């Protein structure tokens, strides 16, 4: 007799078969992907890639530097316990194990994570990676006053003491090493839904335990990535070469690169950079292409142009502690007066930028379209409301005051500065524009000692969470007077909104959707107080040389140079 399987047994059997099929397909796919990669590596390995930029991005210290320009480089020079997957598009939001063997499950109370550290990994100076390096690295975040020490890592047990007296930071009960087991346990004060994201950004890079407990400036620290910094002169060039001690352990986290060397030259104008790429003298330009070259690139070099969405916004931080922007009405007035469509035009037109009047970018968790500062308030910006703006300025009684706009010395930033100067002059202020080298502008505008009233800046997501914009840019903890690492450039500290952000962060642990609702309200609440002027959401235009292949754009860290080849 043939025993026919029952219904549930049939389902189980089918499920098992399907699982087997999927597993074998995945295995085959994985095997073929590995074969493909090996073939590509055999065909394209070697050569020197030349990158160019208007200016360097300041310190080379991965725990201090907070620029997308160098974070891009840190992806292949340093590793954290976890990493964002090095792949195309939004798949890059996936967290994968890097120096840790696997992504750990939290403890029952959601406050502890134990990471098993991989064995056999060496720094570029030949030193072995140990659990001591991991502990020391977390201490160093506080010792060097990393810009996100007070926002990303303040939830670690003992972080409060470290923030108060950084030099004595031990994180004794917060980051605990077990040398025998090769594990590191991180204990949090409270569950944190974004903790893995925070471990995957460069500020949580694992560095040698003997790395200086201060910003190293231009002296690179050894890392574990596939490349290492061979030299760095912010005025001329940064050079990356292969890390001689690197052996690929997880292609998703730290793939071996194709090129042998990367020369990153500074000091070229965007115009010169574009011409160099057209002539085959450079492979990629960091800065956005200047407006006058875009039509040419879009029509004659279509195959070398890559346009990608960015989770980012250009904005004008308004110093809420200095006149005239210490008056809420003035801040609102400028928000009403700005023609965001025109500003998108300065960036390259509607294909490359979308006007915005809120902080969270479209498609981001917590984003709910809203625009108050427009002629017809609603979901989208339509036109500036100059009459309303002038009324607010008149009511504030601040017309006639001097205002200085600090911009980067790049074509787009200067053009935006000139436009804002015109708008502020129209509102009755006596405005001037001061362009500063992009190398120092970002830190200059953060330091309250420089008395910057208004500046032009950009913010790119570190990871896909609303707090990465709102909490980082506008929380009281992000405002450190007198420091170059005070990312709350507006100096805006609102205790009520701070408390709401803390609640939203806590809520996200149990109910992400409800937390996102809260973030939407917080976004709107901040915009009511107008500590900044959101300008537009940009798209990234990468113009690459004809010889460059394997272009990969991660939604987190943009173009991944290690995935590209030039041979």
């Amino acid at each position: 007799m043939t025993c026919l399987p029952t219904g549930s047994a049939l389902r189980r059997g089918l499920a098992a078969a399907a699982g087997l099929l999927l597993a074998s397909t995945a295995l085959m796919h994985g095997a073929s992907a590995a074969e493909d990669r090996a073939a590509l590596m055999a065909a394209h390995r070697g050569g020197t890639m030349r990158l160019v930029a208007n200016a360097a991005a300041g310190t080379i210290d991965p725990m201090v530097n907070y620029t997308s320009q160098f974070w891009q480089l840190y992806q292949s020079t340093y590793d954290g316990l976890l990493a964002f997957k090095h792949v195309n598009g939004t798949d890059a939001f996936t967290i994968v194990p890097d120096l840790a063997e696997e992504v750990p499950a939290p403890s029952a109370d959601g406050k502890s994570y134990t990471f098993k550290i991989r064995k056999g990994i060496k720094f570029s100076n030949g030193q072995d990676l140990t659990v001591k390096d991991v502990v020391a690295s977390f201490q160093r975040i506080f010792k060097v006053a990393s810009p996100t020490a007070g926002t990303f890592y303040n939830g670690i047990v003992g972080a409060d003491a470290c923030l108060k007296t950084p030099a004595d930071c031990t994180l004794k009960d917060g980051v605990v090493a077990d040398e025998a087991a090769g594990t590191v346990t991180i204990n949090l004060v409270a569950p944190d839904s974004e903790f893995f994201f925070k471990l995957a950004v460069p500020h949580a890079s694992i560095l040698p335990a003997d790395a200086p407990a201060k910003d190293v400036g231009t002296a690179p620290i050894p890392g574990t990535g596939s490349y290492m910094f061979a030299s760095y002169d912010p005025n001329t060039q940064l050079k990356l070469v292969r890390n001689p001690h690197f052996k690929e352990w997880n292609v998703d986290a730290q793939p071996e690169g194709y090129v042998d060397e990367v020369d990153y030259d500074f000091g070229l104008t965007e115009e010169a950079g574009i011409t160099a790429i057209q002539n085959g003298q450079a492979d990629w330009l960091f800065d956005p292409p200047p407006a006058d070259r875009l039509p040419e690139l879009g029509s004659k070099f279509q195959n070398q142009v890559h346009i990608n969405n960015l989770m980012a916004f250009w904005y004008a931080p308004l110093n809420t502690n200095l006149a005239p922007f210490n008056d809420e009405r003035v801040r609102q007035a400028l928000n009403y007066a700005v023609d965001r469509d025109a500003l998108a035009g300065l960036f390259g037109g509607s294909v490359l930028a979308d006007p915005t009047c809120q902080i969270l970018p479209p498609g981001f968790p917590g984003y709910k379209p809203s625009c108050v500062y427009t002629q017809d308030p609603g979901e989208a910006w339509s036109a500036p409301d100059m009459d309303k703006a002038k009324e607010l300025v008149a009511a504030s009684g601040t017309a006639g005051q001097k205002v200085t706009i600090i911009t980067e010395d790049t074509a787009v930033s200067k053009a935006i500065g000139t436009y804002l100067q015109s708008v502020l002059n129209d509102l009755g202020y006596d405005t001037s524009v001061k362009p500063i080298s992009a190398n120092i502008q970002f830190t200059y505008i953060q330091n309250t000692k420089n008395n910057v009233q208004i500046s032009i800046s950009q913010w790119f997501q570190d990871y896909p969470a609303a707090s990465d914009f709102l909490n980082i840019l506008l929380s009281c903890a992000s405002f450190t007077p007198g420091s170059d690492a005070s990312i709350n450039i507006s100096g805006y500290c609102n205790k009520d909104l701070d408390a709401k952000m803390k609640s939203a962060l806590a809520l996200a642990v149990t109910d992400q959707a409800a937390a996102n609702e809260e973030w939407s309200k917080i976004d709107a609440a901040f915009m009511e107080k107008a500590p900044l002027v959101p300008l537009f959401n940009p798209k990234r235009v990468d113009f690459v040389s004809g010889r460059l292949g394997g272009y990969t754009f991660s939604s987190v860290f943009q173009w991944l140079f290690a995935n590209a080849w030039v041979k």
Partner: protein
Amino acid sequence: MTDATSPSETPAAAGTATGRPQSPFRRAMVKLWYDRAAMIAASVLVAIVITCLLAPVYAKYVSGTDPFRSSLSAKIMIDGKRVPVMAPSTEGLGLGVTPIGPTFGAKYMLGADTQGRDVAARLLYGGRNSLLIAGAATLVCLFFATLIGVTSGFFGGATDVVLSRFLDVLWAFPVYLLAISLSIILIAQGLTIGPFTIESGSLLLPIGIIGVIYVPYVARPVRGQVIALKRSEFVLASIGLGIPRWRILFFDILPNVTTTLIVFVPLMMALNIVTESALSFLSIGVQPPDASWGTIIQEGQGLLYNRPMVSVAPGIAIVITVLALNILGDGVRDAFDPRSKLRPR
């Protein structure tokens, strides 16, 4: 100049009807009047100055735009159609926004810049600033150069040593390096001297900087001439007659130095226009939204591929003005410098 008419061939040069000889200044002016090239150059300069002075009239009644205000969303009528001043690209991937090109009409005659501003109107306003700075810097330069050169040459001794060494030090700096160094410091912070403060965006700063850096170039020849004059017979005669030194200085020396200074005026102005343009091109001269020919060239640098006229127009204006000033300078030198008689004609 080869095409200049000799004063001896002109009726006026022979003297007045009363037989009294003409003053050297009048003779020189007459000679200059008959220098055709110099007069054409002077006419061109006058035309440029008048045109630039009419900038507000042009902006208000002809172009109808504010050259200091961004007009990124503006539209104008061309051939009965409303076209945007900043036109989005329609080719290929549709990247970029290009300012309108020369319309050769009243509005946007030379096109728009990256901020949608009328280039022609800015060119005229820019010309006012360039000419003002060049002219004022020339006066500053000649004043200090005369003061130092005459004092040094006339009093000699320790005064001469100190002032000459001071000029040597100033001369030792490459002129543009000195100008750039001073500009970077002063343009960023402004200048405070006692109760007086000059704001960082003030035109007085480029005037002062450019005026000072060229002082040695004029002071040295002036000093040399004063030393030569001190040894001339008429000065020695005055000394012999017991005439006070101050009287000799003001009535014998200074009038004879004046011709040298007059010769320097157009040449220094030409030099100053170029220097001002260079500093403004480097963003350390005239500060936006004010314009000068140098700043307009700098602004047009980002449009060289699509809208070259933004840079070319002020470039042409500089070339014509400097050329005219140099030709006029040659004519003035021929007219006022007696040594020119020795030149082959």
